[in-house]
């Protein structure tokens, strides 16, 4: 066993032992001392109703425990005051509905079963109200018990549609002290309504600090949640966000959460129904169950998707959680985290008790729940554990903690930020102390530290497990410390369920299958994708240099001329081409070609074109024939899916004559220095691979150019003239012509550089969208030197 597990087991053992001693002594739920179980309280309420003339035997009944925090405070603040002592720490509300139509009945009880008040159906006229005062006094006796003599009747009684209403006030109340008032209405000879009113003295200052403190931390939490969701969306980008939203694991888990919520609501259907049917009706209840399930599902989904979006920041930490939503949910990998969290649960429950024991600060945790009186305590404990609070914990670890990772580079700063986030979260979830409020912060710091330790050593799932397990443990313990036999038994049931969960996690951790397939699929797919991408990038680099090598490494050196050419692909590989071809008759062919389309397909056809061109140039000296051959072959190969445009000039260096053909390519620029004239040579000609040999040959026309000293011929691809700047203007032929004219007197390389410089300047830092190819032939100004 590793040190991690050993440590956890020790913590679990120590915390459990402490809980066995401390829970019945220190936990406020032990002071509730519920003497009846669910059925017992319902029976007490039926008896009280019957005594006052309403028989509700056989009616559907519902009981709910409501704790009274103010009364608890009063007991603590006025320890010797007998009126304060009579204020109940908790009360049981019961509702009864007849099986058929009819209005319901409501009885409120003290913990010991004595009624505090009721509202029964108005009885049919049975007897006169002559005995009304006696009936009312009997009701008071029922409510006040042995203290009945302390109650002083008001001088007047009220008579209205409610009947005759009598009112008593406890005589030992002073102006500064709490008062207790009992009101009984009698009609048709029955005390059909009774009510105990409590009036509180001025509460000591500072007692309201806790609600303000909780409101503050809740606000803080939600304020933090916003950047925690927005930042990863911005950092990871739309694609990753879409993937996270489509994440199957999140969808499955949130559907399970929604289902658990709905099923438990349906199990308690009768209770829920009775509690609302007097007010809003069946459809409202059905709607609220369905909407509640949908809301829980949506909230869980949102947090879960946000967790998945942060995968890059903490992949290993969320693996178990995501596996829980996969086919491998019952694997060693998930069980290990669940077990780790389960072992930590006693420590989570023990934290406030230990703090309370040390500082003697009064606790009220666990005082406000109605769970002890539900029909299915185990189910209720499980569903409470998987409820909204769990989503909040998921929010902390899956969403807020990664934000700390993104914000801070330094290790200790990160952990400090995580600690702050965790403290805010648990301050919001648990405020076990009435005062001082600072004690709640201490408790939240410890809770947060436990959760972050689980997160760091196991993962998100372990922390969620610790939270859920602690809720189950506390539900069981609260019931176990009640004297009522039924509740005590329910406590054991819940603790048994808690134990079973731990054993199941242990068994799967040691004997269960490894989630190999899922983990492999996840990691290898990602690794593969990564290495495949890198592989492809590397291959593209090879392709790029191969393509560049396919272009002439340097232009031919011809006496009386300078030649310069270059090709810059817009992407890794391009579809542009230039070439210098030595023909058999001693002339030189200069060609620039552009393959339609971009990227890899264009690059492949560029290679093909280069090969065809070389082959054709060995067969013929006639540019029309050369291009005709290339056209024929391309047309066969490309099946008319693409085409190539090409401009070609065949130079007779000695004669200073060029034979020029243009197959659908951008017209070349002929700068005639002496004539101070610039021409675009746009003779007819169809792109290669488009038309059949007859039409192609018929259209293609050769032009003979008699070159003069200082003349320039500029071949280019449309990437140059169509280079587009930020305001969607194209470089265009006019700017090209101007650039060529301004390069008068320069040799070919300087001319080329000057034109490219103009283009770059025009683009203004932007990048050309297309391949940029240019080839320049310059006739020397005087035959002695190329200047």
């Amino acid at each position, binding site marked *: 066993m590793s040190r991690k597990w050993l440590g956890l087991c020790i913590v679990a053992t120590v915390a459990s032992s402490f809980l066995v001693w401390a829970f019945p002594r220190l936990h406020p739920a032990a002071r509730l001392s519920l003497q009846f179980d669910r059925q017992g309280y319902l029976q007490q309420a039926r008896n009280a109703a019957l005594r006052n003339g309403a028989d509700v035997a056989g009616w559907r009944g519902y009981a709910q425990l409501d704790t009274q925090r103010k009364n608890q405070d009063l007991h603590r603040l006025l320890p010797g005051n007998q009126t304060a002592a009579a204020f109940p720490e908790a009360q049981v509300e019961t509702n009864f509905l007849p099986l058929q139509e009819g209005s319901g009945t409501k009885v409120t009880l003290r913990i010991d079963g004595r009624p505090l008040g009721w509202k029964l159906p108005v009885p049919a006229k049975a007897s006169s109200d002559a005995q009304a005062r006696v009936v009312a006094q009997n009701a008071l006796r029922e409510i006040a018990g042995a203290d009945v003599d302390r109650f002083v009747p008001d001088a007047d009684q009220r008579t209205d549609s409610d009947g005759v209403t009598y009112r008593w006030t406890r005589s030992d109340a002073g102006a500064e002290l709490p008062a207790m008032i009992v009101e009984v209405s009698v009609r048709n000879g029955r005390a059909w309504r009774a009510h105990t009113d409590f009036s509180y003295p001025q509460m000591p200052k500072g007692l309201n600090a806790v609600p303000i403190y909780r409101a503050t931390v809740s606000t803080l939490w939600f304020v933090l949640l916003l950047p925690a969701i927005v930042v990863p969306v911005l950092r990871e980008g739309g694609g990753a966000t879409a993937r996270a939203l489509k994440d199957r694991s999140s969808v499955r888990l949130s559907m399970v959460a929604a289902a658990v919520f709905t099923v438990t609501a349906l199990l308690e259907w009768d209770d829920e129904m009775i509690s609302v049917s007097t007010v809003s009706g069946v459809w409202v209840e059905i709607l609220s169950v369905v909407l509640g399930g949908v809301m829980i599902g949506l909230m869980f989904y949102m947090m879960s998707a946000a967790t998945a979006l942060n995968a890059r920041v903490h992949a290993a930490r969320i693996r178990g959680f995501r596996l829980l939503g996969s086919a491998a949910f019952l694997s060693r990998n998930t069980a290990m985290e669940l077990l780790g969290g389960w072992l930590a649960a006693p420590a989570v429950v023990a934290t406030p008790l230990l703090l309370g024991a040390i500082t003697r600060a009064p606790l009220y945790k666990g005082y406000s729940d109605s769970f002890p009186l539900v029909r299915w305590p185990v189910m209720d404990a499980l569903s409470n554990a998987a409820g909204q609070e769990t989503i909040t914990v998921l929010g902390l670890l899956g969403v807020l903690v990664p934000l700390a990772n993104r914000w801070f580079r330094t290790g200790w700063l990160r952990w400090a930020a995580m600690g702050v986030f965790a403290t805010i979260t648990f301050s919001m979830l648990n405020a076990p102390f009435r005062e001082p409020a600072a004690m709640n912060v201490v408790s939240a710091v410890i809770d947060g530290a436990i959760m972050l330790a689980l997160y760091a050593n196991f993962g998100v799932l372990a922390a969620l497990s610790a939270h859920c397990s602690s809720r189950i443990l506390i539900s069981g313990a609260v019931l176990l410390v009640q004297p009522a036999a039924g509740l005590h038994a329910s406590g054991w049931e819940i603790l048994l369920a808690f134990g079973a969960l731990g054993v199941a996690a242990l068994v799967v951790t040691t004997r269960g299958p490894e989630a190999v397939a899922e983990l492999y699929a996840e990691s290898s797919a990602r690794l593969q994708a990564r290495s495949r991408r890198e592989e492809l990038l590397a291959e593209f680099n090879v392709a790029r240099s191969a393509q560049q090598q396919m272009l002439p490494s340097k232009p031919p050196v011809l006496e009386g001329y300078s030649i310069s050419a270059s090709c810059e692909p817009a992407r890794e590989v391009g579809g542009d081409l230039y070439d210098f071809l030595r023909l058999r008759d001693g002339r030189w062919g200069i060609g620039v070609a552009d393959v339609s389309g971009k990227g890899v397909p264009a690059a492949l056809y560029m290679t093909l074109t280069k090969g065809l061109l070389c082959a054709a140039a060995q067969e013929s000296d006639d540019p029309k024939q050369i291009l005709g051959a290339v056209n024929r072959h391309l047309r066969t190969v490309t099946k008319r899916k693409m085409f190539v445009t090409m401009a070609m000039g065949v130079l007779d260096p000695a004669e200073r004559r060029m034979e020029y053909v243009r197959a*659908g390519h951008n017209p070349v620029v002929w700068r005639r220095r002496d004539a101070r004239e610039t021409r675009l040579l746009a003779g007819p000609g169809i792109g290669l691979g488009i038309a059949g040999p007859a039409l192609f040959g018929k259209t293609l026309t050769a032009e003979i150019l008699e070159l003069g000293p200082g003349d320039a011929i500029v071949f280019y691809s449309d990437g140059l003239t169509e280079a587009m700047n930020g305001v969607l203007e194209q470089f265009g032929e006019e700017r090209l012509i101007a650039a060529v004219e301004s390069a008068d007197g320069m040799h070919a390389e300087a001319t080329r550089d000057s034109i490219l410089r103009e283009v770059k300047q025009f683009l203004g830092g932007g990048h050309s969208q297309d391949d940029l190819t240019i080839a320049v032939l310059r006739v020397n100004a005087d035959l002695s030197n190329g200047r």
Partner: protein
Amino acid sequence: MAASSFSVQRSSSGDITILALNGFLDAHTAPEFEKVIQQEFDSGKVKLIADCGELTYISSAGLGVFMSFVEDIRAADGDLKICNLSPKVAQVFEILGFNSIFEIVPTADDAARSFANSATEA
């Protein structure tokens, strides 16, 4: 290309289908155009007029679409005529030598008339 919006609107008069092209016809939008022509061809409509009045840009990939269908269409006794070219697009067609391959006319009516004439000739 910054803007890559492209649409084709189909309308027909008699057995002639007019495809009104709108926007940028480039490598991204060419498949859309290709699909439309293919659908027309598959449903036996082979007298097609491409109205390029609203076509602002055409790249080599877009030109490829015109090219790849014309022979099949002609083999099926139909034609793909082009009309309403903006000067800029017309220049691209011209540079590439498309005017030797396609019948390029000023308006859709001219194209329709041309279809009618060739029908009477046949």
